[in-house]
């Protein structure tokens, strides 16, 4: 079972507006474009940036436990704080930050459904004030391996034929798109997908206004059409683990998948690894066929 019912983990912009000065709540913005926060943020919200705040600059990994404790304290977050994440791009970076907070065991994390887009559509105010919260007191737990998949675990999972979800675009899945001419290659030396992975592009989880689709529609997609099982161990991945953290959130918190992990190494690692199998084409196993869920993508 998920930690909480969807109506608890997902909050509306109205809920956030009512809790702006609630000392038990900290609103956190996480964006693809950092300048958005400087342009205007939810009043009282602090910013946590995944590139700058959550990544270790030396090891390709997240900040360590002590670093996470320092970050939380600086952002005015204590162990018992309700942390509400929101951001641009259908909340994908917000989901990423949510996932890192869960990695270190933060209890009460929520997502503001629809993120910046919904806040704007609802006509709510933006603030450019500098937010300097009183320091929090934080003691993090060790990383929770039950929500993070590392490469060798993914390989074992793949060999066992267990549920794998590739949430990238169909072009990336088929191995047709890696990076563009003249653009720096921050991708991989091989294009394709992990053999056996189903392709459900992440925007299929979201409505035009950035909110998540109703649970019934999501159930229809993942469970009825794709025949995925809530009780089977599942791993989601994308290119660097950000888009798949959104799908991870959907599976775990909106659909109640019991064992779902995000493979944050994702294609940027897998597509560069020596002696790991990849598949090309539209079918999970790599042969010709149509395994992609219909890509009605509106990113």
């Amino acid at each position, binding site marked *: 079972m998920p930690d909480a019912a969807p109506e608890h983990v997902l909050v509306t912009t109205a809920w956030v507006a009512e809790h702006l000065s609630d000392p038990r709540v900290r609103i956190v913005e996480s964006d*693809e474009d*950092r300048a958005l926060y400087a342009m205007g943020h939810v009043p009282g919200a602090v910013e946590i940036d995944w590139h700058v705040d959550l990544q270790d600059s030396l090891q390709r990994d997240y900040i360590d436990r002590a670093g996470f404790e320092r970050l939380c304290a600086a952002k005015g977050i204590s162990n018992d704080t309700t942390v509400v994440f929101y951001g641009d791009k259908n909340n994908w970076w917000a989901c990423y930050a949510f996932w890192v907070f869960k990695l270190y065991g933060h209890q009460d994390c929520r997502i503001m459904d629809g993120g910046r887009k919904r806040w704007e559509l609802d006509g709510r105010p933006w603030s450019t004030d500098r937010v300097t919260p009183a320091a929090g007191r934080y003691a993090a737990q060790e990383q929770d391996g039950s929500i993070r998949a590392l490469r060798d675990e993914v390989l074992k999972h793949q060999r066992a034929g267990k549920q794998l979800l590739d949430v990238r675009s169909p072009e990336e899945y088929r191995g047709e798109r890696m990076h563009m001419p003249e653009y720096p290659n921050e991708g991989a030396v091989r294009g394709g997908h992990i053999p056996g992975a189903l392709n459900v592009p992440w925007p299929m989880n979201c409505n035009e206004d950035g909110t998540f689709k109703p649970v019934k529609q999501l159930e229809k997609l993942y469970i009825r059409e794709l025949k995925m099982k809530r009780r089977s161990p599942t791993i989601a991945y994308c290119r660097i683990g950000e888009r798949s953290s959104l799908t991870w959130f959907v599976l775990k918190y909106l659909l109640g998948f019991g064992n779902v992990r995000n493979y944050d190494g994702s294609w940027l690692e897998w597509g560069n690894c020596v002696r790991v199998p990849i598949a090309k084409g539209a079918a999970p196993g790599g042969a010709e066929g149509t395994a992609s869920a219909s890509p009605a993508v509106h990113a």
Partner: protein
Amino acid sequence: MGSARDRLEAIIAEFADLDGREKLELLVDFANGLPALSAEYQARKVAEDRRVHECQTPVFVWTEVDGGAARIVAEVAPEAPTVKGFMAILAEAVNGRPVDEAQSLPDDMLERMGLADVLGMMRSRGLRAIMARVKRGLAEKATVPA
């Protein structure tokens, strides 16, 4: 008015003195200053394939040369103020200057502005790619006799 390089150096110096938050605010100021596309370019945007496909948010850019002078024309979606501000900075440096001068813009500008640390490695790479694209676009135009 100085060369494209001189103009950019002045902007770099302005950024270098600011703290992280102020740098982002100045970048937003530049973004707000990027002029809207004229009707001519609005029409061309539809007719020509000017979309920068590397960017996930819609970005359209033209590198033009009028009588030997460079002109960057761009439209960037409002949800991407970092790219928009960066494009405005490049335009402010090179527009109206001899097209060759664009090639002297320093590739380490983001580091010297202190923006590389504020934006992180991945975003900085994206901006460097945009700069390379603009430089290349102007270089190609420069070799074509007017």
